[in-house]
């Protein structure tokens, strides 16, 4: 079952470019058999791209991959599996209504010559397999009755059964309890003994020192460091991940005026948020940092009335709301710009003008009808003001570039008298030129007295724009900093704690 004869998988000078982004830039690493190789980096560092290239989901632009000294080519997920590379993603891909054994043997049920399943053999082999990786699980239990961590282990067992020699684990502990993590590590140690190579992707620094043999850090698609575990430290790793010092491009002056606009108290949702509380002043930019799954988007949507709040309330200028929808929030002066521009932002069947005026259409009404001339005039005004590149305001929104669409979505809210604007990753997918414009626009809005909740993974933007910074993890606020006396390292540490 463990027919592993290779010494290492060698990734050599791999590059991958997407329109406008260099996701991977000349990255090399050697993943050795029988070792755990950790891969670290912030959101957007290029970890996912690398995994997807190994899994055959993306094709690389440049570079080579070797098994020992033999070059291999991975053109499809099938190639990758055949070569013995198995990725265990965060989302489990098992069939919930099947048993553990059935899932593991899915592609290769043992049958007799009449095609009848040999259940006894299946479950016996399955038990042997679990013994080898050091984990006890009832092999005839339905997947849907298992915990997430048990499901993950079934996925790993399945990979071993499929003769995987390299197991890639993408944030395997993100939803596990400490006890479950211990069990997972036990399994990983057993895999090591069987000479299997493990590529272990994580944000969590403390785990690295428990399980990894080597650590590679990526930042902005570039290889920053490749070190054995005994030659690194928490400090070195954080430094490698965060990198250069902040260049502050905006002059933010902390507001002297402490007029409270928004109070969020013990906000809790069924799915994510736990007792989130904070205050927001007039003209303040309050930044929120958190890694994937920290709950920033969920917080934005809960305040905005899109997700149901199960406990807690918000107060806008003293007016209390505990059950509310987006319509109420917009009427009370809150606007929201989504991180998912294509999915939740633009209305693709509509043109630029109709997209821009959607939340403020009542101001364009003459008695019964929408006044299109007024709409056109105001749209054109904002097109000019923000330099939106479009031949006319009647152009279909889908034909605009990402940055220009983002300007339209921001303009949407400027047509209303907003008190508070919630911006979720406002610069995501926006090219560099437009990015600076979007950032200075946010700065101007705050200067004019609008309060801003800024959710962003871009540490530089966060530090240069925010007055205060909240760090979130697991649906809670973990730390609060004043942006003029905090370092990237401190913020990052708080977000992984």
């Amino acid at each position: 079952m463990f027919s592993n004869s290779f010494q290492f998988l060698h990734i050599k000078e791999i590059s991958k470019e997407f329109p406008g982004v260099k996701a991977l830039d000349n990255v090399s690493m050697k993943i050795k058999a029988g070792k755990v190789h950790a891969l670290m980096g912030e959101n957007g560092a290029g970890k996912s791209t690398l995994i997807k290239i190994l899994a055959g989901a993306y094709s690389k632009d440049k570079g080579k991959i070797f098994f020992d000294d033999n070059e291999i080519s991975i053109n499809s997920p099938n190639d990758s599996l055949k070569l013995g590379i198995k990725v265990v993603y965060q989302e489990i891909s098992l069939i919930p209504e099947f048993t553990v054994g059935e899932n593991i043997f899915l592609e290769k049920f043992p049958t007799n010559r009449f095609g009848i399943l040999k259940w006894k053999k299946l479950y016996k082999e399955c038990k042997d397999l679990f013994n080898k990786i050091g984990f006890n699980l009832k092999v005839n239990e339905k997947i849907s009755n298992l915990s997430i961590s048990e499901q993950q282990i079934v996925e790993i067992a399945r990979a071993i059964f499929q003769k995987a020699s390299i197991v890639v684990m993408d944030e395997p502990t993100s939803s596990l309890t400490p006890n479950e993590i211990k069990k997972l590590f036990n399994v990983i140690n057993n895999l090591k003994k069987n000479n299997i190579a493990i590529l272990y992707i994580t944000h969590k620094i403390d785990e690295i020192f428990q399980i990894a043999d080597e650590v590679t850090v990526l930042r902005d698609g570039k290889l920053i460091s490749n070190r054995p575990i005994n030659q690194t430290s928490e400090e070195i790793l954080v430094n490698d991940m965060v990198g250069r010092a902040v260049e502050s491009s905006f002059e933010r002056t902390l507001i002297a005026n402490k007029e409270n606009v928004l109070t969020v108290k013990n906000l809790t949702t069924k799915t994510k948020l736990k007792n989130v509380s904070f205050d927001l002043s007039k003209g303040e930019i309050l930044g929120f940092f958190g890694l994937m799954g920290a709950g920033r988007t969920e917080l934005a949507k809960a305040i905005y009335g899109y997700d149901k709040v199960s406990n807690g309330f918000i107060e806008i200028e003293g007016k209390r709301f505990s059950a509310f929808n987006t319509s109420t929030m917009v009427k009370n002066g809150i606007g929201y710009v989504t991180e998912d521009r294509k999915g939740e932002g633009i209305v693709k069947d509509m043109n630029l003008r109709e997209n821009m005026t959607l939340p403020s259409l009542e101001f364009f009404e003459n008695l019964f009808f929408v006044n299109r001339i007024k709409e056109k005039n105001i749209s054109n005004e904002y097109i000019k003001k923000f330099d939106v590149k479009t031949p006319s305001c009647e152009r279909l929104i889908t034909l605009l570039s990402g940055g220009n669409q983002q300007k339209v979505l921001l303009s949407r809210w400027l047509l209303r008298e907003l008190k508070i604007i919630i911006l979720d990753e406002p610069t995501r997918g926006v090219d560099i030129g437009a990015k600076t414009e979007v950032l200075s626009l946010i700065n101007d809005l705050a200067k004019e007295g609008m309060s801003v909740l800024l959710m962003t993974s871009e540490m530089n933007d966060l530090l240069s724009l925010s007055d205060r910074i909240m760090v979130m993890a697991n649906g809670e606020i973990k730390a609060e900093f004043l942006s003029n006396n905090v370092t990237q390292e401190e913020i990052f540490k708080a977000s992984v704690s």
Partner: protein
Amino acid sequence: MIKTIKNNETILFFIFIILCIFLSIYNPQFYSIQNINSILRSSSTVMIVAFGMTILLTSGEVDLSVGALMSFVTVIVMDVINITGSVVLGFIAVFLFCLFIGLINGFVRTILNVNSLIATLAMMLILQGSVYVYSMAAIYNTHLIPFFTFIGQGFVFKIPMPVIIMLFILPFFVLFLNFTRFGRYFTAIGSNSDAASLSGINNKKFKIIGFVTTSLLVGISGIILASLMDTGQQGSAKGFELIVIAAVLLGGTSFKGGSGTIVGTILGILILKVIDNGIILMGISQEFQLVVPGVILIIAVYFDNLRKAQDV
């Protein structure tokens, strides 16, 4: 080629004209006043309901219960007027009933979060069954009030009354969908309901409005149908929902929501009805009256897919 299909209404209009010319040459009876009136009269009941279906489909929802509701309406209106002797009370009963059904459809869709295809299919079954609980036998006109008969069978300036009623309702929906705030909201909800909701639009409210409007329009059409038949019949509008939906889709409204056109809907209905009429005039077996709309529906949705595909 696909680019030119963009202007769907023009194409439909030409198809309609070509059909009319073809049938006129084939059988001059086609352009007789009686025949045209008959086409227009039977189109009117479909159009009235189709106005509601167009805005529903534009918002990404569908109502399969319109046919069953319409049959039910013919029974109710006839029965209530027979008992009370009052047309007004008959109308009130119909509209209250339709309001109730529309609200249930809307609530099941939005509060219970049941897909509207399923929710209204269930409503269709419920109505088809419960109409027999209401009355096992067809209800004949025993009140003999002339005004009631006039609604479906009468003429004003030689134009059939149902056409006049339809023409009276028509402008509201053309203006509504194209020029009002709420019309724009329906389009936004159908095109991207998340984006609409995040723009502060109360999706649920507008979806309920869509279902209620459609049901109320069914009430009007049902009254006309009862007057035309002079009876309340439990199965009088069986399959009506399919003709309405086929016509709306043929007219260019997308089944996935996000784009709808009342003018297209009208052309879709006229085309279907002229084909219907042609089948009779040409002496083709009447079974084809069902076959042809079926084939046309597939073609229409295929074109809808083509149009959607080029948006990506």
